[in-house]
């Protein structure tokens, strides 16, 4: 067992705090894009998960995700209620920081992932069924996938699938759940006929800033030590966001004639999501390419939504799903052991096997997350009904579900 390093510990503690900030950041990022009658209903769907998922995480989630392996599929329950998770280092994860610090850093990832899904069913989901769905989704989708990819003994980890900070575990799972949600719950009233447009884009831009800031902890902190790799991941993260922002704005300028603020925000998030899995395996030049690809592909993915006819209200599929998928595959092309000796070489560095591994990762996680999310949503819809009444939808979630309004008039 290694000794605890104070610099590593301080860095990961601060990174955990940065990742926590992303959830309220996401709440206002989403809130700006909905109509003024659904602002609080949207914010609370992210914010409440800090409570719901944290409690799930300490009693069940952490041990299911990272506990001693059972057949590569799930962790056993020996770390139930953080039993044995203390101030000393874990024998398997991040040997230079307290086990408890690793646990709370991972907790913040578990919190934000179901919060990301809420963008897909924004403005029409009932609060109670939403809480139940998020809780069951964490247990049945997030925890197993987290174990497969990041857990010691997880089958995808053993296969050699790489995901530095959550392209598969966070972005692809939430993107697939978002697709299932949009299909099961159906389009918002007035979708395609009424202008369902953002009520406060400055709020969305503030959220983008908070997310970008937090993302340095998300990706940089995933090095789990204050070292060169953390610095490299930090730089790749910034370059990914930068390139995504530029690519989206240039693309819409060419196609639609105007550069937009929401486009800049969306491109930055697309670039950041896309670089996430690759941030600790690729160098700065590859990060620029990956972020740029993210901005470009997510722009077209979001544009395709209208033609496909489903109402993923705030584009979780087009940005997080597609971004996570592209970033995960890009590892298979651009990864280099010169950046991270614990990683592998991609296609450009003479390692064709890695791309195949990444494809297996994308297909298995994508299909599993979609199918389980869809089944969960259908069961909850049949028993409790996911959707608010037409009257409540007209009135808005703020009043109908929470008896308060965001803006007095």
């Amino acid at each position, binding site marked *: 067992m290694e000794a605890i390093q104070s610099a590593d510990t301080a860095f990961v503690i601060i990174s955990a705090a940065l990742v926590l900030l992303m959830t309220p950041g996401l709440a206002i990022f989403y809130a700006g894009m909905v109509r003024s009658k659904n602002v609080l209903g949207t914010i609370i769907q992210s914010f409440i998960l800090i409570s719901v998922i944290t409690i799930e995480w300490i009693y069940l989630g952490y041990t299911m995700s990272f506990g001693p392996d059972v057949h590569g599929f799930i962790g056993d329950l020996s770390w139930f209620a953080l039993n044995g998770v203390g101030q000393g280092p874990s024998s398997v994860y991040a040997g230079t920081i307290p086990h408890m610090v690793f646990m709370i850093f991972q907790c913040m990832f578990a919190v934000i992932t179901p919060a990301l899904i809420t963008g897909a069913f924004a403005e029409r989901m009932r609060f109670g069924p939403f809480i139940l769905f998020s809780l069951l989704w964490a247990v049945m989708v997030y925890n197993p996938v987290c174990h497969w990819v990041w857990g010691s003994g997880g089958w995808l980890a053993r296969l050699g699938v790489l995901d530095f900070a959550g392209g598969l575990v966070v972005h692809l799972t939430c993107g697939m759940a978002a697709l299932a949600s949009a299909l099961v719950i159906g389009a918002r009233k007035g979708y395609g006929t009424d*202008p369902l447009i953002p009520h406060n884009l400055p709020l969305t831009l503030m959220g983008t800033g908070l997310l970008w800031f937090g993302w340095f902890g998300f990706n940089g902190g995933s090095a789990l030590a204050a070292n060169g790799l953390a610095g490299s991941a930090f730089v790749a993260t910034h370059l990914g966001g930068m390139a995504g922002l530029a690519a989206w704005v240039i693309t819409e300028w060419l*196609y639609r004639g105007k550069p*937009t603020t929401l*486009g800049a925000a969306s491109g930055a998030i697309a670039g950041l999501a896309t670089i996430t899995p690759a941030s600790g395996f690729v160098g700065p030049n590859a990060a620029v390419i990956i972020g740029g690809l993210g901005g470009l592909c997510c722009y077209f993915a979001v*544009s395709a939504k209208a033609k496909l006819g489903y109402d993923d209200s705030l584009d979780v599929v087009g940005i997080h799903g597609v971004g996570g998928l592209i970033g995960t595959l890009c590892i298979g092309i651009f990864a280099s052991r010169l950046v991270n000796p614990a990683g592998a070489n991609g296609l450009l560095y003479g390692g064709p096997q890695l791309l195949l591994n990444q494809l297996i990762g994308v297909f298995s996680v994508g299909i599993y997350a979609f199918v389980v999310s869809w089944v969960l949503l259908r069961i909850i819809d049949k028993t409790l009904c996911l959707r608010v009444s037409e009257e409540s939808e007209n009135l808005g979630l703020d009043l109908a579900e929470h008896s308060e309004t965001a803006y007095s008039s």
Partner: protein
Amino acid sequence: MKKIEAIIKPHKLEEVKEELNEIGVSGMTVTEVKGYGRQKGHKEIYRGAEYQVDFMPKIKIEIVLEKGQVNQAVEAIIKAARTGKIGDGKIFILPVEEVVRIRTGEQGEEAI
């Protein structure tokens, strides 16, 4: 007594107020409103998708005047609010039965 309701472009409010002040109209009520007439709305683009927004933001000015002042006031509003393009707005003139000043209870033209 007459009431003038004028719908104007929002950026013309200050000029209209100045013109009305010059002819001695010393008070008005202003509301931010939305609407459309011959000027159809505009296009907005969010994440690559175009939305037609029909209702344009406008300002509604309400003033109550003695009958003799009305023509002058209408001219002042036109002078200040006209740009010559579609969407400059409209002026409505309505009869007013009675006016009461709440503080003193004065009635009629005294109360304007």
